């Protein structure tokens, strides 16, 4: 069995973000990059499957050369090999273009199961895995909190608002991981050292017979803003009834959270 895990290199969510001078992108200089947390759950699940039923786990990531660091950390967790699809530039890829390239790359790896995080925590685009599945015509399930696998099928619990459902998908299939799926392991030092020696296949658009043009987005960011840098710090005045009313109003109308 062969499992391919799609992982993405993203800035750590604890970072303080700044809008770059073009006003349309985030300043990436000085940010610390990590593997997107949901992808870690996907990698962990792949390794657990490997430990349970034997499998080859290949981690695939598309992006700038630095993506290899993220691939290495997946290898340190226990993945067997990596594949890095080098994309020109370091940001501003559209999900469509990346998904199309990843689908071609993933196909060359002939996976029985593709795992990915439910979304990457940078652009929160939440669509690349589903696109890849559709492009490869694979059955797929999103936001999975439990996964069981046999040689021919995978059974998953999918989270939906207000509940969950259980689905059974024939292999090959694609599944996206949600937090509750597992607890990603902390890599051990020997595994970190071993990871340095594991193979990372280098893929390029050229090698895959793809044109860079498809990467160009059919969408443009026209502006970027930082909505609220600081907490509001609004201490409400008045008697209890007034303050409570104002709080509920603010949460519903100003913040639109309830």
């Amino acid at each position, binding site marked *: 069995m062969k499992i391919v895990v799609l992982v993405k290199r993203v800035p750590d969510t604890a970072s303080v973000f700044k809008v770059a001078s073009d006003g349309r992108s985030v300043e990436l200089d000085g940010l610390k990059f990590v593997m997107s947390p949901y992808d870690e759950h996907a990698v962990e699940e792949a390794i657990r499957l490997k430990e349970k039923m034997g499998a080859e786990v290949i981690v695939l990531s598309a992006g700038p050369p630095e993506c290899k660091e993220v691939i290495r950390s997946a290898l340190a967790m226990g993945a067997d090999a990596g594949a890095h699809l080098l994309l020109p530039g370091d940001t501003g890829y559209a999900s469509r273009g990346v998904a199309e390239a990843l689908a071609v790359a993933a196909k060359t790896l002939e996976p029985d199961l593709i795992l990915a995080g439910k979304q990457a925590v940078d652009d929160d685009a939440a669509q690349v895995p589903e696109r890849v*599945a*559709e492009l490869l015509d694979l059955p797929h399930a999103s936001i999975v909190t439990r996964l069981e696998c046999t040689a021919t099928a995978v059974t998953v619990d999918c989270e939906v608002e207000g509940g969950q459902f259980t689905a059974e998908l024939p292999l090959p299939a694609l599944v996206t991981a949600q937090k509750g799926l597992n607890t990603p392991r902390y890599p051990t030092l020997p595994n970190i050292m071993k990871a340095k020696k594991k193979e990372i296949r280098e893929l390029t658009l050229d090698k895959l017979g793809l044109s860079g043009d498809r990467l160009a987005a059919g*969408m443009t960011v026209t502006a970027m803003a930082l909505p609220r840098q600081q907490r509001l710090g609004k*201490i409400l005045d008045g008697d209890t*009834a007034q303050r409570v009313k104002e709080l509920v109003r603010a949460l519903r109308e100003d913040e639109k*959270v309830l």
Partner: protein
Amino acid sequence: MSILAILEQRGGLKPCAYETLSAAATIAKASGMPLRALYIGAGLGEDAQSLAGFGAATVYAYEDPELTHFTPDAYVPIVVGLARELDAKVILGSATSVGKALCASVAGRLGVELAQDCTAVAWDSALAATKPLYAGKVVAEMRLDATPAMATLRPNVVRVERNETPPPSVVQRGKPEVTLRTIIRDVVSAAAGTVELTEAKIVVSGGRGLGDPKHWPVLQSLCDTLGAALGASRAAVDAGWIAHPHQVGQTGKVVSPDVYIACGISGAIQHQAGMRTARLIVAINKDPDAPIFKICDYGIVGDLFEIVPALNEEFRRVLGK
């Protein structure tokens, strides 16, 4: 050419279905393109009448017991087929688990752009979308020039506006001729009151200010009203008032809900480490110097035994419970 709104159902239509339709209506109006709605499920039935007031002339209802639950196998060909049939220039859906998965799949099939989880959409000779990135720390304004352009809308952000237009006519269609590879085995509704702390949208937490473990019901009833999870500070856990799985903080759970309501919690750094990424922080504490007020969005200085029940009543009132 048309604007297509995908109506989300779970049994009946969900509130977000009307929000999507309302947003699509705005775009239809601005672009001059006709608005069409799409329903996929067991049966639209009487709900068709509730779709009045948006200017949608037609709702395409794909009805079949097998379409009760979302599977990409069944749903994606429907949306793809209808989008092509209607030459949809804009396709809008809801940014729910199902809506996002469906739209991502459709976008993949159609090879078009999709902006997920938008907080606003508009028409400006192309679809314009406002979308939070980096867990809401950055907001991007984007234009989706290629068509059809797709977007999903975050629930609760669009105000539903209706006009005097009549309900759409229903075009009933059956399920498409596809092999369903995915089999739905079991559907479970989450039991009330068992919201997992780390995944809850709202967390209500109590600390030392609670004074005594017998006062948890004060917070629990607020949790019940809001569908929130109950959290606690380390001080409350250390005092033995509540079990450790409820602890929020450096040595407990790390939570990032939309709203975190801290009641009687001073907000020491260990606690902050567990909740500071919440989108909104509400603090209720009788000590005006408590550090929690420095990191809150809304603060009420006062006795939590007075504030919290009043807050509960107000929420019950406005939420119609």
